[in-house]
């Protein structure tokens, strides 16, 4: 996993609620056997029509491709457990997803891939959408160490929570598998005690 560095970036807003993982990456694109390349099909059926022509007014086709922050309505990532959804968002270039509510499995998948999820309250999320609507060039800072999401001119400043284990993993690029492997003695002990 790559280290998570602080970010200053414009944001891409998708003002839709209950975005499920079938929208993020439709099932017919899950046939690859590696993790790379899913960004091409991120939001495929919202981005392209059935003749594979880009749908011009969909935000992903209009917004700056270098944006690192995706902002979406509540209950983002519901549905399937497919980690391909997190890979597709990351592969497209995003490093942060901001919403007022994340589905549990998506949230774990994102953090396991160095994709930070920032949960804001409903009012703050509306404010973020509003600021982007007023000025699509507005830039947001993500400071993971201090757990704040803010604009330089002070028009927005909110702290966010993350448990210290996930935070340490993200900042250092640590991986849960390395961690679990370091715990093999405890696992063997547990198996012995429980006659597994």
């Amino acid at each position, binding site marked *: 996993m790559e280290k998570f560095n602080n970010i200053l970036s414009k944001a891409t807003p998708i003002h839709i609620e209950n975005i499920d993982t079938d929208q993020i990456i439709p099932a017919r694109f899950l046939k690859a056997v590696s993790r790379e390349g899913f960004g091409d099909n991120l939001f495929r059926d919202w981005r392209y029509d059935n003749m594979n022509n880009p749908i011009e007014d969909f935000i992903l086709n209009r917004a700056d491709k270098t944006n690192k922050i995706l902002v979406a309505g509540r209950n983002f990532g519901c549905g*399937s457990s497919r980690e391909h959804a997190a890979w597709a968002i990351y592969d497209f270039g995003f490093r942060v997803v901001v919403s007022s509510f994340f589905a549990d499995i998506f949230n774990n998948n994102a953090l396991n891939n160095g994709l930070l999820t920032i949960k804001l309250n409903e009012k703050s999320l509306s404010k973020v959408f509003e600021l982007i609507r007023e000025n699509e060039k507005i830039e947001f800072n993500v400071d993971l160490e201090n757990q704040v999401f803010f604009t330089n001119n002070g028009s927005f400043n909110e702290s966010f929570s993350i448990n210290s284990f996930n935070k340490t993993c993200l900042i250092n690029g640590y991986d849960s598998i390395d961690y679990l492997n370091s715990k093999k003695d405890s696992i063997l002990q547990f198996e012995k005690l429980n006659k597994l």
Partner: protein
Amino acid sequence: MNHPKTLFDKVWEAHVVDEIPDGPSILYIDKHLIHEVTSPQAFLGLRKRGLKVFRPEKTIATADHNVPTLNQHLPIKEELSRNQLNQLTKNCKDFGIELYGLGHKYQGIVHVIGPELGITQPGMTIVCGDSHTSTHGAFGSIAFGIGTSEVEMVLASQCLLQKKPKTMLIEINGELQKGVYSKDIILYIISKISSSGGTGYFVEYSGSTISSLSMEARMTICNMSIEMGARGGMIAPDQKTFDYVENKKFSPDGIDFDNKVKYWKSLVSDSNAKYDKVLKFDAKDIEPMITYGTNPGMGMKIRDKIPELPMEGSKDSFDKSLNYMGLKSGTHLLNKKIDYVFIGSCTNSRMEDLRIAAKFIDGKQKASGVSAWVIPGSKQVEKMAKEEGIDKIFKNAGFEFRQPGCSACLAMNDDKIPKNKFCVSTSNRNFEGRQGPGSRTMLASPLTAAATAVNGYVTDVRDYI
């Protein structure tokens, strides 16, 4: 006296290897199920790290998401699908994992074969790279879906890092009306609490209505726990559970079974156990259900009108959803003409589901203009259906009785509903494009689906029983 515990607490605590302060617990996993779509990158990860599978005997593989449901004996035409299945075969061989691949007598949808082979047992922790792993909670196990990085964790260490979720009790009491099935119960609950109402929780279902259900009906309920956002759902094991598990391929036998049953009987919530949330429903309020929107929370009683306003969330998202479906607020779905009927998926493809549908259509014909597909959940279900002559009942009525797999539930294979076509489906998700780009899904019970196929329009089964 000990602190009273919920069923969830008891199973969870028995599997905690260690706890990380302000972080997740290390949770030991008893059974790990894998399939072709969410496992290849996990094996790739193991290869890159030079790791073995830590406990290969605790993982079982099958091929289901991406398999054709016709001519399974022939090589798979599409290159990417074929490659994914070949990759699964190679990974299982290289890492010493038992595989019930295409053509094997135990092949089938991962959440159908687990219970029917006795892999699923009370008190276990069970995970799979598939959100409907919650199905196995019907046996009083903690079962939930995980991502591919987590699949790799389990392969590497037989453990997962998990934060303990909050607990929710959903109690349903009373007798069900005729024509109302477990699918209607779960669609009713989700319509009441929304597709995100269970997020952050692990649900326990209880009450006299739940106790009265068969194991297969309980599986349908637990299966769709994820559709309210819950990590999983579970039901305390009882005599029905023990009877179901006994004499299955992987079940303990003899004295081992008796000893297990003694332990399994302790897996009930203590009388004063505290839940973070409690919801109660009355079975008499539940009617045959159908969905009208693009998430499973957008469901209603089959005779109701589509609401004007969403139960939660914005009007914009609600309108976008109805617009996709080509439906309008204030209109009925009853008697609406449909194009496809799909009976299958990990929610409703077991023997009981097929029997209920077959009983209704026996001697009838599907409506002209309707394509009706029946996809048994496993090779064993397919075999039993043939032995009982159920396949013939479907075929005589003009249904296609195909071979096992996930099929049109997620349309990864060729089983796709065309753009703007309406499908009454026994599956679990009505998301945009879920059954094929532009497809319009209405979720319902197997009986509602069967009756709708015969009439060619959305049907209230109570008119016929």
